[in-house]
């Protein structure tokens, strides 16, 4: 999708999410939808058929009564490494890993809607457009001009707000730079989080807060045993929260229907 820039060392953009700070307000979810022109739900949409590029799940420690404790875990595309499962299964070459940024991109114009990538994604972070994207009359004026709405019948997912990456790159080029100023490229969910639980940056740059906190002792990634090399790092000091690193999806299979 994006040709590797030989003058600039390749970045490896990633996130750290501090689960112990997340209060589950949902600001990240709506900020993502605003930024990426994700439409409001159709009347028949449910929590299984909706479009939420980032989705906050409520998990608990499994105890009953007074010992029960809960936490919120935002889950988005984990932006796996070069062996991302969704890339290898796509028959249309509609998914790729950008070597310049490490971002797993999705090209809806190429997508045929076979949903192999959804089946292959171990994080269930891909969503299918079951309905035409529609907005209430007049609200289409509020769409972000940097992102094209997707059509019915294609898969979509988080791309670390690629429109913002393009804008930051254009600004850097206009200023005569090859590298992006980190302050110019911040995904919408990071910007929106009122509790400062999400940090974003280049994991290859040891000076960034993201790179530093990714290697703290309380940091972990989901399903590391699958060797998908995800670039989303979670943090928690609670052992039972860290157990989600072994679950296919937080809260899956629980009777709790929230999240």
């Amino acid at each position, binding site marked *: 999708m994006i040709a590797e820039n030989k003058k600039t060392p390749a970045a490896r953009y990633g996130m750290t999410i501090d689960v112990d700070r997340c209060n589950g*307000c949902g*600001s990240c979810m709506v900020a993502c939808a605003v930024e990426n*022109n*994700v439409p409001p739900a159709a009347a028949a949409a449910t929590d299984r058929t909706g479009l*939420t590029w980032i989705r906050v799940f409520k998990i608990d420690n499994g105890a009953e009564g*007074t010992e029960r404790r*809960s936490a919120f875990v935002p889950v988005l595309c984990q932006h796996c490494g070069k062996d991302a499962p969704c890339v290898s299964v796509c028959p249309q070459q509609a998914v790729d890993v950008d070597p310049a940024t490490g971002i797993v991109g999705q090209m809806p114009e190429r997508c045929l809607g076979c949903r192999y990538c959804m089946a292959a994604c171990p994080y269930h972070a891909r969503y299918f457009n079951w309905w035409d994207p529609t907005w209430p009359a007049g609200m289409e004026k509020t769409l972000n001009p940097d992102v094209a709405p997707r059509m019915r019948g294609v898969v979509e997912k988080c791309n670390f707000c690629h429109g913002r990456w393009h804008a930051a790159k254009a600004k850097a080029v206009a200023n005569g730079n090859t590298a992006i100023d980190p302050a110019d490229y911040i995904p919408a969910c990071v910007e929106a989080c009122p*509790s400062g639980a999400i940090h974003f940056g280049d994991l290859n740059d040891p000076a960034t807060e993201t790179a530093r906190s990714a290697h703290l002792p309380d940091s972990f990634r989901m399903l590391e045993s699958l060797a998908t090399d995800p670039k989303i790092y979670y943090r928690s000091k609670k052992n039972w929260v860290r157990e989600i690193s072994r679950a296919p999806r937080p809260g899956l299979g629980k009777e709790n229907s*929230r999240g």
Partner: protein
Amino acid sequence: MRNRRDIFKFAGGAVAGAFFTPAPWRLLTDTALWSENWPGISRPARGEIRYKFTNCALCPAGCAVRARCVGDQPVSLAGVGGGLCPFGLTAHHLPYHPARLKQGPIQQATAAVSQKAAQLAPGAIAVLDLNPGRTVSWTYRRAMASLKGLYLTPESHPVAYDLSAAKTVLSIGAPLLDGWGTPANVLAARPNFRLIQAEAVESRTAMLADEWIRIAPGTESAFAQSIPSLAYAKDISLVLGDAPEIPEINRQLGAYGKTVFARPEAPVPESWIKNAAAVTELARVPDHSIGLLLIDESTAVSYIPWHQIQRKLVRENPLVVTFAVTRGGYARYTKYALPTAVYPEVLDDIAPAVDCVHPTFRIAVPLVPAPAGVMNPSDFVSALAGLSAANALRERADAVHHTAQGAILTYADAKQTSLKDLSADAFWKSLNDGARWDRPPGLSKWDRPPGLSSSAPAPRIPEPESSADLPLVAIRQPYTPALVSPLMTKIYQESNLRLAPNRVALHPADARASGVSNGARAILQTRIGKCAVEVTVDPAVPPGAVQVGASPGIQDVCGPSSRVKVVSV
């Protein structure tokens, strides 16, 4: 020698062989490209990108907002110096909400109100302000003084809390970390105080508290009364919550003047103070005494159940007019519902925040024009009293400027300028470009709220209702604005992250006993009435309790700790 048959064989072979090359498959991909460029899909408008700054008017937190605009049209909102809540982030969608009220019988209502006002005795006209503390609130007070009417609010002596001065905060069900105050202020103070949350459910605040005390549903008042006898009572610097005992407990703990203060307002012109009606709490108005009631719910930050309002109206032919942005609130009961502008269409100032102990002055500026057909409640009420209030906001800003105290922070450049260095016009222009004025707390006088004397009588614990026919206790969710963006389906419908305003959540055992299942429609029944709800089954809800959404329909029949029953339909 090649013959014609060889030419056909070569052509046939070429066609067959082409299927073994990438060419037809690439063609298929490109066909997908063409077929999926559908003309019915909305195309975002393009234009020059600009940034405007304002303050969010959805609640008294009044967060600083940066609006990204294409031309003059806002396409996204972001916080300045911190994040925003999901309601504030999507407020630029509100003007286009399908449920928005855009037309109303303004002329008929004006005639009916004028006629009614002429017939009524003094004291029978009232304005109920559901977002007090704004400049328009002073207009209402002046109008009511002129008409010898009443200016009503949900509470008469609001207080403000200084979290930065607190070492230990005991919250009894207050959503401290979930929209209670200004998010940036609360988060800045959070590392410096210990938070104990006493609540029946593990709310968002309870999850992040240092300690969660799980109390039985409906026992908030009893727990509040037990605070002075707690072993760690002397360490508590502040108690938060809605229980009626809490002001007296804060007094006993010595919190007044340290962490609790009378909520300060920005200065107002002297002439307004001299000619303003007193602030009266709705609950203190005699029953059946109001003949004409004007309700401003256009920017409401709280909801009073309709039966509590109705009790104050005269029995014979009362006239109630509501200024609203949706039909979902009091418009269901009133004769006239008049449409008003909605944030971000309005020019309005922000009421003082609950967590700000020094005077501030901030205004929300219109980012988009209001549609034809909506009206300004301030104009309506001031015209009724023969007042001129068109420039009230500017007069207030001039009164603030006249003090020559404090400083203004402009959001575009994060620059702080002393008020002494600005002319009145420059101050007004800065406010309109996105700024906030603050006066340092040292310049204010703090005192206990006038309504709380040192010899306050012991608070009364409400008698528990019978549980024979209503087996569950209601736990109410934090207030949500009357009108929210259509995109809130992301957290209400597509993920169930938050309990939607029209839903209730039950423990699985209670759901089985009530005969309802997840997603089912049901009736919520209380002593006052009943309303239709949808059910969420959630094991995190304690048995014997039901979490209820914050829709006006539910609040009309179900107060905090009400006994309720969920009936399947």
